[in-house]
């Protein structure tokens, strides 16, 4: 009897109360906040299923961009199933319950709109830009594939074939691309952090429909996603539409925590040479890993990248390309992988002598940051360039803005305060760059890979 009574209580009230509230519209509404310091009205709310929504109003053109981002990327590929996160990007266009294979593409193109998708280390983005009267179409399409992706053996087999063909084509067209992934493996000697997001022939072939479905149900759930809408739309209208299309999609289990990285502090294979008959010009790849920088140090590292390699008047460009002419081509960038940041530099040179000279110049230039203060003038230049790029991303197109806001939200759990972001950069001094360089530019974390034609 006692057991019966307890059960009865448990059945009725927990079940009936929310239902009554739902039926009579008494459920607490989502929170909304207006954020200051931004040139366009910005608001944010969360649906009951955990889906985060950001709306940015800009009526200068009758357009709207929608970015649906999932907190999943190559870091979540299961061991020996490298490429699964990337495969999901393709499969999301292969049809859902109410949208046929590739129809997503057709629907968007017929409106005159554009779409694309991308997968990074820890995020996957799907995005569309359409005339603003077509916002409901985009939300309908995106909600359908979040709610009911249809996957079968034939689709998975087709995508595997496509991925392998693309990989083969990429190796032919961009023979240096594989060395970018090699550098990741050297800098991050751990499967989750260092494997190629594109997978290998073996890992792609080993992926089953079961793997895909498990991955989809685990990560492609509203509580693991953020939608950012930017354009000619009022926040209230956007909220109504997002609620209509997404709120009934069931919440999923909480996504597992990120795999812990376990790297030894010293990087092995710090200087290696590879002879590759596929390449026609000698090349050098440089990598540097910065371990566990504090959030406050990240703007410093960003500015250091501008000083070192960003733009034609950056130190390495002026030295290697303009003055000494040891490099024919030079590029470089930073990449964040959770607690780690990598700096990668790639250059092409005429011969091995130039490669060796470039190597020395890169090391010397990094050392200079540890020994000498950068001039105020040089720092101001880097700050202005950073400021331009930052403002350009947030104010040029709806899509760039929506992507930037989504990334910010994922990385920091909040939207940027524009004034504060720029003030942080303004406060950086030559001394803070020197301190950062002494802390993070450790030769034990440098790595050079020379690629020579046969």
């Amino acid at each position, binding site marked *: 009897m006692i057991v019966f009574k307890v059960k009865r209580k448990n059945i009725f009230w927990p079940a009936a109360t929310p239902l009554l509230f739902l039926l009579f519209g008494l459920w607490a509404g989502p929170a909304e906040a207006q954020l200051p310091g931004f*040139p*366009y009205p910005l608001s944010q709310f969360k649906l009951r299923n955990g889906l985060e929504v950001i709306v940015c109003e800009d009526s200068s053109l*009758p357009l709207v961009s929608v970015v649906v981002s999932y907190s999943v990327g190559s870091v979540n590929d299961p061991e020996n199933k490298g490429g699964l996160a990337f495969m999901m990007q393709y499969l999301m266009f292969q049809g859902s319950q109410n949208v046929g294979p590739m129809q997503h593409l057709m629907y968007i193109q017929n409106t005159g709109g554009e779409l694309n998708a991308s997968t990074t280390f820890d995020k996957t983005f799907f995005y569309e*830009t359409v005339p*603003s009267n*077509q916002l409901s*179409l985009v939300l309908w399409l995106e909600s359908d594939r979040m709610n009911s992706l249809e996957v079968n053996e034939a689709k998975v087999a087709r995508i595997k074939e496509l991925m392998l063909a693309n990989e083969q084509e990429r190796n032919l067209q961009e023979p240096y691309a594989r060395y970018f992934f090699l550098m990741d493996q050297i800098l991050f000697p751990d499967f989750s952090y260092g494997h190629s997001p594109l997978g290998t022939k073996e890992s792609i072939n080993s992926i089953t429909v079961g793997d895909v479905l498990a991955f989809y149900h685990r990560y492609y759930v509203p509580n693991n996603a953020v939608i950012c809408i930017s354009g000619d739309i009022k926040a209230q209208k956007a909220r109504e539409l997002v609620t209509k299309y997404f709120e009934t999609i069931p919440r999923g289990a909480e996504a597992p925590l990120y795999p812990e990285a376990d790297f030894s502090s010293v990087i092995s294979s710090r200087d290696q040479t590879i002879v590759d008959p596929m390449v026609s010009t000698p090349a050098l790849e440089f990598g540097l890993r910065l371990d566990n920088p504090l959030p406050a140090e990240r703007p410093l590292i960003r500015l250091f990248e501008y000083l070192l390699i960003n733009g034609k008047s950056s130190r390495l460009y002026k030295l290697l390309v303009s003055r000494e002419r040891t490099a024919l081509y030079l590029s470089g960038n930073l990449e964040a992988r959770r607690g780690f940041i990598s700096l990668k530099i790639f250059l092409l040179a005429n011969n091995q002598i130039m490669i060796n000279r470039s190597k020395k110049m890169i090391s010397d230039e990094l050392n200079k940051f540890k020994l000498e203060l950068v001039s105020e003038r040089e720092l101001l230049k880097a700050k202005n360039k950073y400021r331009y790029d930052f403002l350009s991303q947030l104010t040029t197109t709806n899509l760039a803005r929506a992507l930037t806001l989504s990334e910010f939200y994922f990385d920091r759990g909040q939207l940027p305060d524009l004034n504060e972001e720029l003030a942080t950069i303004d406060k950086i001094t030559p001394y803070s760059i020197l301190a950062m360089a002494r802390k993070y530019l450790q030769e034990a974390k440098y790595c050079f890979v020379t690629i020579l034609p046969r």
Partner: protein
Amino acid sequence: MKLAGSFRFKYCLTGLLLLVFCLLNLQSQERFRRNPPYPDPLNPMKVPPIESGLLTSGLRVVTISRSNRPLFNLLVIVQAGENDSPRQLPGLATVTAEMLLKGTLSLSSSAIEEQMESLGLTGSIEVRADYILYSFSFLEENLEASLRLIGSLFYEPAFSSLELAAVKRGFYYQQVARKKDPEKSGYDFFLTRMFAGTGYNPGVIDEDSIRNISQKDAMSFHQRFIRPNNSIIVLDGNINLNNASLKISRAFSRWVSRPLDRPSVPRIRNLNYETVAFLDLPSPDVSVIIGNAVSPPGSDDYHALLVLNQLLGGSPSSRLFLNLRESKGLAYYAFSHLSFFKNNGLFWIRVKSSPESVGQVVKEILSQLNSLLEERIDPHELEKAKAFLAGNFPLENQLPEQMARRIGLQFVFQLPSDFWNKYYENLLIVSSEKVQEVARQYLTRQPLVVISGDFQASLNSLRAVNRIEIYNQKGQLKAICEKGVVKNENR
């Protein structure tokens, strides 16, 4: 009993509530998820407020006022391009345009780069047949300093011989690479043939002539054409015309005007081309370019031409792509385009295919063109094309430099001031009859066909073609092929 009765009631109520909720929920989900929603009415794009004025130097200043951007975009359009290069020196306009960023009398090339980056200023150059377009973008707070730097590029370029050699070398290798690309070299050959005999250079450059360009040539081109009374500045940002004119007139005060003589551009006429031109170059792929002359921008046929282009090859859902790639698997891609020049326009199709399929590709394209001339256009297809164009128009103006360019070229091509604001209105009234009328007016049954790629590898699939003229990479006729038989081979 009482307890059991109460339980039954609550149990039933829970069940009922669950059932009602599930039914409501399922029904509503089914309803809106099953089919795509109807769109709201289209909100036509309006060009932001524009003001225009003329400085005493003859420089036209146009402002696009926007209050919510912390950046400025500035376009300088010089109304001279490759068509103004001397006939024996094609490429001079491009080299001269590039040299303006390569040093002034007071700043070296690297000092300019340094200053530009210090101001948060980026720049790019585009040279066309009729104009040179400099596009700059910079931080709002650096407006005056940026204008001063940009102004100095125009009034005191140094034309150093060292920089000139580097610019020529870079440009030479670009042209050599272009010649190896079947699509780009095919398009250049197509342009040369379309404008043959008119004396007009549509922007085709011979890499060998680049070597002959001297400092004196570049200085002379600058003196003659890169003048304020031949230029337009479009400034897009948080500024009005008066303020912009004041700042620009100060920054560009030393840029002096000179008398100009702009020769008129002849109008090209469509011919019936009885031979196919084959540009023979080593490549595993084959490019096909087929096209006709059409009216210049701003003509009464402009919007109907846009619809015609969209129907045939404007996007992957147009006829050519669906037919050649999706349905028949003959091509990697198939698109059509409209290109505009002063007083002229071109409609052209580009297809990337394989040597084995090229004959079939040409046949299919000609058949698609003929069907436009003969068969009534399905109203649904027409509306789909118009809907695409209407929806895509704001996407083509997303970047501030795209908008500034559109406004600037409105002056270059002397389009009416309300031309872009009437875009939707004029698009909506295009009927299938008008599209067919335009097709019949401009699309000849024997358009110019240019194929570029490996001729020997393509020969088998082209045996049915009556006559093919085979050209080498220099554009010199080297052989003729009639019904698959190659004659007059000079190799």
